[in-house]
């Protein structure tokens, strides 16, 4: 894809980059502001991670061009993400399972 960019295309991209930048800055302020709200810890974690995920996907989709990247890359990343979550949650699940036994 990237090789097919002509000048106009790139100029469009630059506009998108600027918009993404604004969105990222805005979301950063929101997430900091939200941390001062009196939320329960569950809500706070959900909100903060949700905002972080949005920001992360903006960076990945636009700066890293994942939105128009080849399928192969997407597959590799999906595989990685799958194992990432397994790595993240099974140790935690085992901890909970252990606690359940007392």
């Amino acid at each position, binding site marked *: 894809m990237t*090789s097919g960019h002509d*000048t106009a295309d790139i100029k469009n991209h630059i506009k998108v980059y600027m918009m993404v930048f604004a969105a990222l800055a805005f979301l*950063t302020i929101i*997430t900091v502001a939200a941390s001062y709200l009196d939320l329960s810890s569950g809500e706070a974690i959900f909100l903060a*991670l949700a905002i*972080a995920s949005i920001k992360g996907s903006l*960076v990945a989709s636009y700066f*890293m061009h994942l939105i128009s990247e080849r399928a192969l890359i997407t597959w590799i990343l999906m595989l990685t993400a799958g194992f990432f979550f397994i790595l*993240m949650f099974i140790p935690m699940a085992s901890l909970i399972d252990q606690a359940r036994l007392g």
Partner: protein
Amino acid sequence: MNIPYTVEERPDTGLYNAKLGIWLFLASEVMLFGGLFSAYVFLRFGAPEGAFHEWGKELNIPLATINTMILISSSVTMVMSWASLKLKDFKKYKFYMGITLLCALGFLVIKYLEYTAKFDHHIYPSTNTFYAIYFTLTGLHGLHIIGGMVVLFYLWMPGSKMWHSKPEQFTNRIETVGLYWHFVDLVWIFLFPILYLL
């Protein structure tokens, strides 16, 4: 015989070699930070209720917010420097790359201030598990920044000669190193809330 697809894309995969390589590298980086995030979650669950939140209150949120902004900006200038090369504007490339490096430096300076402030208050990695994981995660992230800066500096100064001989390959190099740089930014986007805000 030269190795094929170092510059041009292989028709059936649509990729040049380095791009696949860097994405595989980033996949392994995801798993590296995955291991550390997993440790974070594990320790947070294991700590007394609310302890991580209490311990984290010592951290300086305004400084970290500034750092987040700096890193996001550096990501934008990074992608702009690549776009400039696509537009064949070498001068602008130099300009944006310079700013990217400056941002990275600024990030490290603020990080240094944060660290020394912690040490002054006798907070060390051995203080508790929160600071253990805080220093490990931010330290490793800092190392990634430093490593990235070395490469960026090379491509900004001595390595940029390549633009005049092999412009396409040079643009690809900027794209791959850019992918790495955005990834480092991405990691920080997650580090910021889980360490400072939660």
